[in-house]
């Protein structure tokens, strides 16, 4: 199996060059920008940040805008709980990202790029800074890249703790020193982004696919994984599995293969109870759904989404209400407050779930959870609120009895420390 994302011995430039590093950029430098975009289109690469938008098409929009300067932003604000794939690229193979950004810059004629790195990854910043220095030293960045006359440099911008900044317009606001709230679209960042300039925001993993595409060619790339959505995908696996960790697998690998084939199955010989396939915003799936191939379309058909690909596995002793409650604590805390349904709705949902978990649930609470979720869904400014609502609806769809049980008799798994404290209070 081809592995190209994390296939290096060490994060240094030497190691990266040995693995074929910067050959993709060399090829890109020999091509007309329009042809690079064509190549990326042919590769069928879809964004790895969660939405799965075709990268080549997004580039075409940005390239089509006559305004200059243009900016490249790498979205390294990996905040989706259950996800640690971008962090691995940043820390273990930073040059693949730098090369990817340089390719994008060549395609879009940008001269400056920013890596928006989440504040919780301070070590990543040091590693990136070191790698950038190496790249500048070897002429992969700077005034005259590889002797081609191309000019491009990258700054690292450290976030400060805001999940919403993973949304590209919120990220741009944040990079401009503002509160990280999403902007109205249109105008889209490809036309009016950072400081009103055409701006290409791509996820770390998306950009990390580019060196391989440029080096091996789109024709090779499309042979990997699902023909409708080719390439490898990083799957971070967490929760109750024997071998949690990060797996680079072709798009379309089934959940079963990921959980049992790669991650060693459920820990301590227990049974699988539930799996969240794409980070906390993706609705939970029951065990009978695990033959689902992990690609954008198939997961959606199951009523969930591929999202970040963060696979969160829960065994049969997991309290789903507790999981739901903690998930909503997260959404409440991370709601930016801009729009009414998300700001008020997430805190309401959290409050109801907190009651249910702490044996204060009432009859009608499940109906209320559904109503509030439906009132949020589809009415919010950005997808964060939708994520919260669909997460709750997902838990209710597959584990309604467990919620009812909580309301009637309390937690069948026994309260944990937290629940005890609340009940005592």
């Amino acid at each position, binding site marked *: 199996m081809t592995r190209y994302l994390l296939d290096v011995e060490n994060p240094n430039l030497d190691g990266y060059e040995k693995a074929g590093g910067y050959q993709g950029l060399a090829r890109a430098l020999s091509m007309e920008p329009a042809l690079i975009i064509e190549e990326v289109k042919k590769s069928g690469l879809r964004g790895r940040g969660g939405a799965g938008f075709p990268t080549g098409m997004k580039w075409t929009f940005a390239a089509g805008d006559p305004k200059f300067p243009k900016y490249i932003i790498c979205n390294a604000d990996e905040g989706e709980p259950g996800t640690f794939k971008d962090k691995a690229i940043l820390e273990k193979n930073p040059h693949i990202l730098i090369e990817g950004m340089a390719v994008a810059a060549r395609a879009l004629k940008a001269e400056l790029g920013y890596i928006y790195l989440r504040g919780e990854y301070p070590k990543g910043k040091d590693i990136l800074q070191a790698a950038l220095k190496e790249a500048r030293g070897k002429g992969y960045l700077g005034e005259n890249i590889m002797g081609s006359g191309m000019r491009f440099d990258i700054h690292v911008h450290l976030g*400060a*703790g805001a999940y919403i900044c993973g949304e590209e317009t919120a990220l741009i606001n944040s990079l401009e020193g503002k509160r990280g709230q999403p902007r109205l679209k249109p105008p889209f960042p490809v036309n009016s982004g950072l400081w009103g300039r055409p701006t290409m925001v791509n996820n770390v993993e998306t950009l990390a696919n580019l060196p391989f595409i440029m080096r091996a060619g789109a024709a090779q790339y499309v042979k990997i994984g699902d023909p409708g959505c080719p390439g490898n995908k990083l799957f971070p696996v*967490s929760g109750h599995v024997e071998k949690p960790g*990060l797996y680079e697998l072709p798009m379309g690998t089934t959940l079963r293969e990921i959980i049992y084939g790669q991650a060693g199955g459920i820990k301590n010989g227990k049974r699988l109870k539930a799996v969240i396939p794409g980070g906390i915003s993706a609705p939970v799936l029951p065990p009978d759904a695990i033959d689902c191939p992990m690609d954008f379309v198939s997961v959606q058909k199951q009523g969930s989404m591929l999202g970040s690909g*963060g696979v969160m596995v829960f065994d049969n002793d997991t309290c789903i209400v507790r999981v739901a409650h903690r998930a909503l604590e997260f959404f409440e805390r991370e709601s930016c407050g801009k729009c009414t349904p998300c700001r008020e709705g997430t805190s309401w949902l959290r409050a109801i779930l907190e009651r249910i978990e702490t044996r204060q649930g009432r009859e009608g609470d499940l109906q209320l959870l559904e109503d509030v979720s439906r009132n949020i869904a589809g009415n919010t400014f950005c997808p964060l609120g939708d994520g919260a609502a669909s997460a709750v609806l997902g838990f209710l769809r597959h584990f309604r009895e467990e919620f009812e049980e909580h309301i009637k008799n309390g937690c069948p798994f026994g309260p944990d420390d937290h629940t005890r404290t609340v009940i005592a209070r």
Partner: protein
Amino acid sequence: MENFPAFSPGALARLEEIKKKYPPGRAALMPALHVAQEDFGWLKPEALKAVAEYLELPEMTVRSTATFYSMYRHKKTGRNVIRLCTNVSCLVLGARTLKGILEGLYGLAPGNTSPDNRFSLEIADCIGACGSGPAMLVNDDLHTGLDAKKVIEVLENYK
């Protein structure tokens, strides 16, 4: 060149570097806040005012941005800041128990500082260590695979 006595010389040097990377105005605000937080310990009003003065921004602009992000601290913290992740992946592996231990052992409630001023505890929402949870950041150091025993061992190294 104006004088900014509120900042230490080291912080001022870093601010000068930051200024070079961004266009004038607001864009340098977040990195400047990071520097101010380190320099002042937390973003007390004087720190926010100093940043405002340095970047020539309205004070309220600085405060409004600063309070949006959870990693900027708006009250005094202890010598070490613990950011314990209790999000779902860590939760199901026992993160709440760890929280209880911190509370019992060090008198640490989320958002508060231990009476001896040694630790402050913040609850984190995923620190990208789900594959090796439960996990926490102590200052800039990541600690993973925590359990009741290990969390105490780790924290004993921070005075």
